[in-house]
């Protein structure tokens, strides 16, 4: 094998290894936080329900608090409305969160 071919072969191998390491690293990091992420999401949902509960028929804080905080919570509002659709399948969410298989 010529010098350049060998060099480029090693370079390609190096690049592949680096790519593999990056993938492993990303997956590892994702795994390190997967349950935590779900927990965080649930906390945010609870917060949303507390503040924006008026929109889904829950007792709410003094309405002006809801109105004052609402403009800062577009994401939460969206998520809450969507959650109504999935709220009847908490099992699925739980199973996936806790990764039983």
């Amino acid at each position, binding site marked *: 094998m010529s010098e350049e071919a060998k060099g480029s072969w090693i370079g390609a191998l190096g690049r592949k290894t680096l790519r593999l390491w990056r993938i492993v690293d*990303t*997956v*590892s990091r994702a795994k390190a*936080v997967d349950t935590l992420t779900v927990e965080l999401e649930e906390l945010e949902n609870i917060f949303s329900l507390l503040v924006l509960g008026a929109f889904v028929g829950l007792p709410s804080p003094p309405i002006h608090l809801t109105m004052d905080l609402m403009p800062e919570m577009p994401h939460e509002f969206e998520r809450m*409305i969507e959650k109504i659709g999935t709220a009847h399948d908490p099992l699925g*969410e739980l199973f996936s969160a806790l*990764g*039983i*298989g």
Partner: protein
Amino acid sequence: MNALLIMVGSFAGYILMYHLYGRTIGSRIFGLSQSATPPSVALEDGIDYVPTRKEIIFGHHFTSIAGTGPIVGPAIAIIWGWIPALVWVFAGSIVMGAVHDFGALVISMRNQGKSISDYTAKYINSRTRLLFFLVVFLELWIVIAVFGLVIAVIFAMYPQSVAAVWLQVPIAMGMGYLVYKKGMNVTLLSICSICLLYVFILAGAYVPIQMPAVAGLPATGVWTLILLAYAFSASVLPVTTLLQPRDYINSHQLLVAMVLLILGVVVASLGGRLEVVAPALQAHPSEAPAMMPFLFITIACGAISGFHSLVSSGTSAKQVKTEGDSLFIGFGSMLLEGALAILVILAVAAGIGMGYTTPAGHVLTGTAAWTAHYASWTAASGLGTKISAFVDGAANMIMALGIPKQFTLAIMAVFVASFAGTTLDTATRIQRYVLSEVFATLKLDFLTGKYTATAMAVGSALVLAFATGASGSGALKLWPLFGAVNQTLAALALMVISVYLKTRGGYKWLVSGIPAVFMAVMTLWASGVNQRLFGQSHNLLLQLTNMVIIFVTCWISLEGLIRFLKTGGGRPEKLADSEFRGRALEPEEG
């Protein structure tokens, strides 16, 4: 028959079938299209919907579904011979398991990432909702009991693993504290924790811990009690304290174990020491249930597992970059789990033949070593021998790499016990939730408290575990029950996929319909046989449980069938768009 040949052959077969069968299913049946816009792109928000590289999703997905299932199942099923086990794992995982996982992922992807259970819930109306919870309760009840027994059995047979498995708890808690509370560098701590774990595993070989019989309870019984107490404590802790870091450490153990196994098979076979010693086919081993239908119930995870259908394809589906990627992720990860199961088969069919030291001190090799474990269903303590066949067999194979046997034994034993341990924790948590839902529905609110519900979850499993005899020999009866419920869920998911495919027109639905019918039939058949067996041994608890399983399987099959017949071809049904999104996403047509 050379083990390496089997391994290379089946792996090559998987790759081939992925391209042949997988791609056909993808393009012709599900109509995957590169031009379709998956939710990760259409609804991209940087939080949930993030287009991600398929390798990353794959890694995450696979480590989530792999566990103790693909190990225990094949380790038991080898009793019917290595050919049936291998064929079922290979064919089953391709034609049923991968189709099931892949189908669930695609349906989820085409419904904005909503889980398949959402889709299923449309067909399980509120009337049967309680029933569905009952199914899940049964499943978890059996899981907690069986997995508790699995670990107890490992502890009893491999005292060198005890220390390391328990020490994993403080390691995980330490890592959890330092990373999640103190914010220290995660890569550094991961490496430290994992290295520390392996140090303990190796050191454990010198510090075996034997549990004495206590108050008339055999060692396994005592361990089971301790483990269920552990399940209780662990499941009430916050997730970052123990569960999250432990789960994380386990996924690395999985990687290490698989790599070691593959290398072990290669090296040992090339050294000419790894030959299959298990019989090719043994349809009616002594005292064991018949191969037909029990093979299909015993190997669940690894061929097709209903648990996966409950796993909300949610996260993965929200991250898939293109429709084409879903094949790699859904289909591919199931095939990889099949590959793991095949490695297990090799360990218990060939690895065990490399040498086995009986408790009495004799060293057996070849077929004699195999027979010591599989002479009969309940030979030498039932479930224990089957698992030890794997641990010993795998340890043997890895030994070929030059690692001393006492260490390899410890590594493999700790591997199995760790995974089972985390499952105990998570299953208890979910069971707690299921129980509180059931109690709340029955207006028994005083039972819905966190500790009460957990106590009931653990307590009920304890009852089941001891109902089969605390020594673990009876635990083998539980595994088919676990398999039966698991496969019922699998059949249900396949039915749902069939309904979806029916709406795509033509006979596409056969791809999942046939497996669905197969699973339902096998499960009912096996449950019927079990009913007779339990009746003969006068075990009331098991009889009742089995009857409930039969009832549930019939009901679910009926519901699924009715729904299937009602569905006409045409536009695929979509879950109702949340009105919030404004514009409706068009269903993907291939």
